[in-house]
């Protein structure tokens, strides 16, 4: 019987061609992934979350001081009224897109390789959206009346300005956050039930018992679960495109040279997926090593993610080139000046650094050896993460600091508080991620079972050893 098998999977060589190393069984999947959550707390994890909480405290401190003192503590002023706050907002919201793309679009496209990374990427999405969401609220300067942006019957006798992309942003991001959390939690239910059944600790049994919502694994449950996943995937699919399109419209609806470009929505969406996948790679590499998940997150996964990074990187590069083309083709003196200023102005270095990070570095991924090499993956992902921050810097500051009137030109330098808050958001992000790793299976166990089942079935068909129906009916239960 399959259940009785135990195999030491760690010794098996990963040839970079498979998304699930051979030798895995239903039992080994359940016990190795579920075991991470149920095993006693490791010292390393405690140290890691301790450091994260320290950074989180820095965030809380900087927000408290910001609310007490006002946005004057940031580096923003005329003419650069959108600074690090908006840059970091767009940067974080972009990071989240990989999770949604993996969980929604790749699910609908039936890409099997998404199975072992979707849960982790979705968690990343949720915490990245949390980090992103802080910024626009604080950017308003009066966060205590931020609810004014919501449409409710109020004493002002006014609705929010529905013609403004800034109002669309609120709907786009809150919808995105809600659907992402729902999708993630729905997927977790069967796994929570697994933990409930495996846990020996009474508190853990109660905790997972409550959050698994009475899951018994009946056919009816699975049917509804599958339907809900499909519906949520359908709901998330437009969100992959809509959220960052609307973020880009915050700029594109403005009339500043460098913002008022129709290519913005697709180019921003590609940039978001680009940044998101780089972050997934960056986080997955150490996690896979530390928690010995090499059998489930294989070299093939990184190879595929590197391909996505390369493809979206090319779209982004195309966007940079198009922007310069538009400036030349429009014949508009402000656009022409803007393009020149972007490349050779006081902030010209940021543009060239951006081209190096986002345009040149990902080209390494044309080579299969680079796509499968850990140092190369880390190098390119770090470059892309820096590059995507620079991209927003180039777009936001680059257009604002020198606009139509030379008399109103200025310069922008982020202040200490801008940086402290940015570093602090990493604290929030990693605190969330470490709690997630500790409390929930970071790989979707039930989906891994289904994947294993599918793989075995394929093998049977290929080898022709058994009658398909017979093997299907007898030896592989869908879940543990």
């Amino acid at each position, binding site marked *: 019987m399959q259940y009785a098998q135990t195999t030491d999977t760690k010794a098996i060589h990963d040839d970079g061609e498979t998304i699930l190393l051979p030798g895995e069984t239903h039992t080994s999947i359940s016990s190795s992934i579920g075991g991470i959550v149920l095993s006693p707390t490791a010292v390393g994890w405690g140290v890691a979350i301790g450091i994260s909480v320290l950074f989180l405290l820095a965030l809380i401190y900087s927000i408290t001081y910001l609310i007490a003192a006002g946005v004057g503590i940031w580096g923003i002023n005329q003419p650069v009224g959108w600074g690090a706050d908006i840059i970091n907002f767009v940067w974080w919201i972009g990071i989240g897109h990989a999770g949604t793309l993996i969980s929604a679009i790749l699910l609908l496209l039936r890409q099997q390789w998404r199975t072992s990374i979707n849960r982790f990427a979705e968690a990343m999405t949720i915490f990245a959206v949390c980090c992103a969401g802080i910024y626009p609220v604080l950017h308003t300067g009066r966060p205590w009346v931020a609810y004014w942006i919501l449409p409710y019957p109020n004493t002002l006798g*006014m609705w929010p300005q529905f013609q403004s992309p800034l109002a669309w942003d609120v709907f786009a991001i809150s919808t995105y956050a809600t659907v992402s959390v729902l999708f993630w939690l729905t997927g977790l239910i069967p796994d929570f039930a697994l933990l409930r059944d495996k846990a*020996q600790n009474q508190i853990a049994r109660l905790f997972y*018992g409550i959050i698994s919502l009475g899951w018994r694994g009946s056919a009816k449950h699975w049917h509804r679960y599958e339907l809900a996943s499909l519906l949520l995937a359908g709901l998330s699919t437009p969100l992959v495109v809509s959220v960052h399109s609307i973020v880009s419209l915050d700029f594109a609806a403005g009339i500043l040279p460098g913002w008022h470009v129709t290519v913005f929505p697709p180019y921003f969406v590609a940039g978001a997926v680009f940044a998101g996948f780089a972050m997934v790679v960056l986080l997955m590499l150490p996690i896979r090593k530390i928690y010995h998940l090499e059998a489930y997150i294989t070299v093939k996964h990184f190879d595929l993610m590197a391909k996505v990074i390369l493809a979206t990187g090319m779209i982004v590069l195309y966007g940079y080139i198009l922007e310069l083309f538009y400036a030349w083709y429009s014949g508009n003196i402000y656009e022409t000046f803007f393009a020149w200023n972007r490349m050779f102005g006081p902030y010209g270095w940021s543009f060239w650094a951006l081209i190096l990070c986002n345009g040149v570095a990902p080209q390494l991924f044309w080579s299969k050896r680079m796509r499968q090499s850990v140092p190369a993956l880390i190098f390119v992902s770090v470059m892309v993460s820096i590059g995507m921050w620079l991209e927003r810097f180039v777009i936001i500051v680059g257009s604002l600091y020198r606009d139509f009137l030379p008399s109103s030109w200025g310069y922008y330098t982020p202040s200490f508080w801008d940086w402290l808050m940015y570093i602090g958001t990493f604290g929030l992000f990693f605190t969330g991620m470490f709690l997630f790793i500790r409390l929930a299976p970071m790989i979707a166990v039930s989906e891994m079972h289904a994947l294993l089942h599918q793989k075995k079935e394929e093998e049977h068909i290929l080898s022709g050893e058994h009658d398909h129906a017979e093997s299907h009916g007898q030896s592989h239960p869908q879940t543990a």
Partner: protein
Amino acid sequence: MAQVYRSPQVFRPRANTLFWLAVLGLILGASVALGLLYYLTVSPTFVRLVGVPIEQPVPFSHQLHVSGLRLQCLYCHTNVTESAYANVPATQTCMTCHSAVKPTSPNLSNVVASWESGTPIQWNKVHDLPDFVYFNHSIHVAKGVGCSTCHGNIAQMGYTNNVGGVYRVEPLYMGWCLGCHRAPENYVRPQEEIFNTAWEPPANQVEVGQQLVKEYGIRGSYELTRCAICHR
């Protein structure tokens, strides 16, 4: 077996009911809390003290002076037709009469003290708009907005038993301002009725109002509801 046997069931069947009750309680609790919060924030009585008389240093009665003695509004609020502020009268204005009329009344002790010391009386503001609102009395009066449209029938507001005086009849919410800025024809009156605080709109107010809007040259609601009309 070394392993301790545990029942696969963590909860008893009753837990299902409890769960649904908890969900229901959460939804109901949140609705009630939100509803209460909403009610408290929009309620004119709680937030804007509508109908709550504000105590003043001098028990001045509009009822006595306006309805009884037939003083005209402009006698005290001299600049309301010309200035942004409907000024509160100086002590000198009170003393034009009260140097001869009841100068020793205890009700007037603060007025007399102010007159003697030269320190103005610190009246408590009843209709206090936020500083980011640039309200101008003169333009409203000139375009047919009577006193009572915002201040109510002030001629009937008395001061008895040391409580009372002027109170708000309108919440002064922005939505309330916009009500008129969006449809001034519902509120404007002829110039001769401006200071008549007992004025009631006629049955054909909308018809008359539209005519008056034309005569006064009141701008359209698109312009009147621009942010910069009130927030500069």
